[in-house]
C-alpha cells in the first residue's frame, strides 16, 4: 500500500494498520489482504465480484472490517457483498469506501450489501464514504444496502459521507420481522457541485418491530441533496423518520418523508426540517471569542457529530 492508499484506509475505516478480527481489504478492484477467524469466515462470491461474510451463531464482541479503497483513476466497479449473521451473534461491521481520483476519468464504486440477520442477533454497521484527489474525474459511489432482520434482531447503522464524493445515490431497503429493530443515523455533507440522493424503504412486517431513521445533512456551495424515506407499517409496530438539514450558500435540498400505515396499530411519525444556520447561534459563539467562520465550523461539526 502507498501513502494515498493508507490515507484512504484511515479515513474510511479509522485504520492505521491491519485491524484485529476478520477483515478483507479491497484495493483497486482486487482483494489485497484477507483474514477469517474461527467464528467469521470471508470467502469469494462464487458467481460474481464480491465476498460472503459468514458469522457463526453466538459470536460475541467480534468485528469485521471490509474497507474498499480506489486510487486508480477511471476504475469502475460493482461489488456484491453478502453478510450472513447467525442467531444471537453480537458483532460490529465496518465497511467504507475511499476514492482518490487524481485523473480526469470518473472513478466509481457501487457496493451492493445484503444483510441476513438471524434471530436475536445484534449488528452494528458503520459505513464511511470519502473522496480525495484534485483530478477533474468524478468520484462516484452508489451504495445499496438490503437488510433482512429476523425476529428480535437489532441493527444499528451509521452511515457517514462528509467529504469529496461527487455523486452518490444511496439505496437502503429493510424488512423487519416480529420484535426486530432498526436504527439508522445518516450524516451527509455535500460541497462544490456534488449531488447526493439518499433513499430508504423500510417495511415493518412483524409485530412490535420498530425503525428509527435519522438523517442529518449539510449542503454547501452549489450542491444538491434529495432525502427520501418511506416507512410502511404493516402490522402493530412503530416507526419514526427524521431529516434535519442545514442549507448554505446556493445549495438545494429536498426532503421527502413518507409514511404508509397498512394496519390500525401502526404508529408512525415523520419530521423534516431544512434551514440555514441561525444568526443567533453564530452570535453566541462570537461572544465567546470565535470568528464567524470558526463559529460556523463548530456548529456544523456539532450538527454532524
Amino acid at each position: 500500500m502507498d501513502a494515498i492508499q493508507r490515507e484512504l484506509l484511515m479515513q474510511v475505516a479509522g485504520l492505521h494498520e491491519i485491524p484485529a478480527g476478520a477483515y478483507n481489504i479491497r484495493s483497486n478492484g482486487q482483494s489485497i489482504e484477507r483474514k477469517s477467524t474461527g467464528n467469521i469466515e470471508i470467502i469469494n462470491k462464487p458467481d460474481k465480484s464480491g465476498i460472503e461474510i459468514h458469522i457463526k451463531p453466538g459470536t460475541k464482541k467480534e468485528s469485521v472490517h471490509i474497507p474498499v479503497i480506489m486510487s486508480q483513476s477511471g476504475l469502475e466497479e460493482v461489488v456484491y457483498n453478502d453478510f450472513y449473521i447467525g442467531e444471537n451473534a453480537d458483532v460490529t461491521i465496518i465497511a467504507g469506501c475511499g476514492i482518490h481520483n487524481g485523473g480526469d476519468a470518473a472513478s466509481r464504486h457501487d457496493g451492493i450489501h445484503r444483510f441476513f440477520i438471524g434471530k436475536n442477533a445484534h449488528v452494528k454497521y458503520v459505513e464511511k464514504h470519502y473522496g480525495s484527489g484534485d483530478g477533474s474525474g468524478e468520484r462516484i459511489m452508489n451504495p445499496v444496502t438490503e437488510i433482512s432482520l429476523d425476529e428480535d434482531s437489532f441493527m444499528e447503522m451509521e452511515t457517514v459521507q462528509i467529504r469529496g464524493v461527487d455523486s452518490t445515490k444511496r439505496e437502503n431497503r429493510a424488512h423487519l420481522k416480529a420484535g426486530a429493530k432498526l436504527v439508522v443515523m445518516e450524516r451527509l455533507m455535500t460541497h462544490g457541485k456534488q449531488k447526493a440522493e439518499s433513499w430508504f424503504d423500510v417495511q415493518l412486517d412483524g409485530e412490535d418491530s420498530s425503525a428509527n431513521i435519522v438523517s442529518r445533512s449539510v449542503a454547501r456551495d452549489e450542491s444538491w441533496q434529495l432525502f427520501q424515506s418511506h416507512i410502511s407499517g404493516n402490522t402493530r409496530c412503530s416507526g419514526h423518520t427524521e431529516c434535519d438539514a442545514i442549507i448554505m450558500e446556493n445549495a438545494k435540498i429536498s426532503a421527502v418523508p413518507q409514511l404508509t400505515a397498512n394496519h390500525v396499530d401502526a404508529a408512525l411519525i415523520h419530521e423534516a426540517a431544512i434551514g440555514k444556520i441561525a444568526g443567533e447561534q453564530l452570535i453566541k459563539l462570537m461572544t465567546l471569542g470565535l470568528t464567524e467562520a470558526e463559529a460556523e465550523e463548530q456548529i456544523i461539526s456539532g450538527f454532524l457529530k
Partner: protein
Amino acid sequence: MLELKNISFQVPDEKTRNTKEIGILKDVSLTLEDNQFVVITGPNGGGKSTLAKIIAGIEKPTSGQILFDGQDITDMSITDRAKLGISYAFQQPVRFKGVTVFDLLRLAAGKEISVAGACEYLSKVGLCAKDYIRREVNGSLSGGEIKRIEIATILARKTRVSVFDEPEAGIDLWSFQNLIQVFEEMHEQLHGSILIISHQERILNIADRIILIADGKLVKKGTKEEVLPELLGTANAAPSCDKAANRK
C-alpha cells in the same frame, strides 16, 4: 474600565414605513469601573437589553462612543470585543443541535479544559455536572437548565467585563439563592466588573451601583443606598408577583 458616552440607538418606525425613527436609547452615558458590580433596572421596553447588546457589539449605536480602558471599541466586532475581555450572557440562551454542554464550556474557556474543570462551572450554577456534561445544548433542556448553562459559560470565560441580561428569568426560587452566591463569588474573585440587567430586588441589593433606565434614558444612577429606597417605592424594582414570591 468601560465607558459609554452619549449612546443613542434608533430604529426605523415600521408603522410609518420608515419615514420616522424611534429612539430606543437616547444619549445614555455611564461608566463601569474595574471591580464594580452594577445593576441596570427599569421598566420592560426601556432599552436595557439594547444597551447590553451594544456593549457586546451585537448592535451598533446610531451615535455615541464606547471606550474600554480608553480604547475606542465602538466599531469593533463581537469577536474582537470578546477577545478583549467582554462577556455577554443572553437573556434567551441559544440552542444548538449536536453541540454539547462540554463543547460550549470548552469554547467559552478558549482552551482545552478537563471534564473536571467543566464540571466545576456547572456545579457552581447548581447543575449536577455528570448529568449534563455530555448533553446537547438543544431543545431537550428546560428553560431553567439552559439559562444556568449560559451563566456557566460566562464563569468559564473569566473576563474583565461580564454582562448578564436578566439572569434570573426562568430560574426557580431555590436556585435563585445560589445564583446570588455565584454573582457574589464572581465579584470577589474575578476582580472584573459585572453588569447585570435585573428586576430582582435581591440582585439590586448586592449591587455597588444601580442605574435606572426608562424610556431609553438614564433616569437615575447612584449607590444602592441612594437609588434603592426610591425604586422600591415604585413599580420599577420588580413586578409585584416576583416581590410577593421573594417574601415567602
